[in-house]
């Protein structure tokens, strides 16, 4: 179920990116399908990344406290 929710979320974000105006160029062709998909998936992954970084900070905060406690 978790995976299906992810799919729906990603597809929803994809649909939000369907209109553009200007053009960008580079030596490598990013491929339009890949480009649009990256914008969609990265917005989701960016959110997850914040949570991950935040969680790691909480973990290291508590592990530091416990480490200090053990040392004392």
């Amino acid at each position: 179920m978790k995976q299906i929710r992810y799919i729906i979320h990603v597809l929803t974000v994809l649909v939000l990116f369907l209109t553009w105006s200007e053009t960008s160029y580079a030596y490598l062709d990013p491929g339009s399908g890949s480009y649009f998909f990256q914008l969609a998936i990265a917005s989701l992954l960016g959110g997850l990344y914040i949570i991950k970084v935040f969680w790691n900070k909480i973990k290291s905060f508590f592990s530091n406290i416990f480490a200090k406690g053990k040392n004392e």
Partner: protein
Amino acid sequence: MNNLHDYQLIPGSFRDPDGFLYWADGVLYRQINGGYQANYDYLMSSGLYENLTKDGLLIRHEEVDIEPARPDTYYRIIKPEPVPFISYPYEWCFSQLKDAALLSLNILKRALDFGMVLKDGSVYNIQFFRGKPIFIDTLSFEKYREGEPWIAYKQFCQHFLAPLALMSYNDTRLNQLFRIYIDGFPLDLASSLLPGRTRFTFSLLSHIHLHAGSQKHYAAQASSLPNNRKMPRLSLLGLVDNLESAVNNLKWRPPNTEWADYYTDTNYSQEAFEHKKRAVAQFIDRIKPKSVWDFGANTGVFSRIASNREIDTIAFDIDPAAVETNYLDTIAKKETSLLPLLLDVTNPSPGIGWENKERISLLERGPADLALALALIHHLAISNNVPVPKIAEFFFKICKVLIIEFVPKTDSQVTRLLATRKDIFDSYTQSSFEAGFGEFFAIQSAVKITGSERVLYLMERKNQQQ
């Protein structure tokens, strides 16, 4: 003005307008074109170059003051540290490709810390150098512009993630698709080949299955790419972090193969085995080669006789499990002179890509100073029906000196090969072996291995084919 007649361009270095590689007087140079000036200067001055090279992640170079190959577009000429042997992903085992993928992402993360990004995600930017993967394309870095998506996302998925997923979930031999698809595995192909359960792994579901679906969806539309749609830096970091987890989670454990127990399942006694090792060592000490190619190296027991003497050694084997085991050993022991690679001697890597020259064939990467062909000839002559003179001609093309073991028909390994087939090999004898190789090589020495019927030869290539 164009001085290209004095130089030899590297055939695989033409896509990037920012520069190109070429040989001049036997030395490899890279010309950096004016269009890359700002990025190159930033790479060097921002501290990123120093950060990457001090940890051995990026190849070092020095700026040289020589006449440029193409003065009209020139900004700088650099001389990269030479990589002794260029290898390709269809010659790598699973962990080699995985380490190359992780290196690319590590470099991308460090580049972002310094305000730069990788402008491509090509697997061919990675080589193996002193026992580790290393990034060789100094021109792959460009300034990161806030809000830009990663231009090489598609290429990274095609060159690293899809191949690793297929090797992990389907069959490790699928890395051979690199021989066909020069720009990495098409994602629709990977998506259709991967088992259904990979759709329940978030990273593979997104970066391969949904990604392929998106490519298909947009393939029919001639929509131009926007640059008004921004991707926050945090999203890019999230993407890179997720790709890294995806690669880290892909695993492959070598199964037991026919070669796995090879050294415990031969007719060699311990005494014969030790004698053979001593004889090979004596020959190597006599030749003092700078490069050794060991064909049919298995897990590299004999290759290490050379590499332990700090001779650049390639341990070729046909068995992905043997190459994987050997590679993991080199990493564990921090060996810097041994490179295990996948190779089928009966079908060595061809030249592929544009004009069949972008990735060069095995033969063009030679000749090695010394080749080892130990316990190999019976597989070529009997299992693969290659006549002995043709085997001799092959080695004539790829090495200057050859250490080869003749395995007679009476040897139990050959008897095993002949057990299930008609013996049509009347000419497979020691005298015809010596005659066949004598056409191309001068036999310097022959040592009968104690306690076996095998003979170890040291031969030097004749200057002219007779």
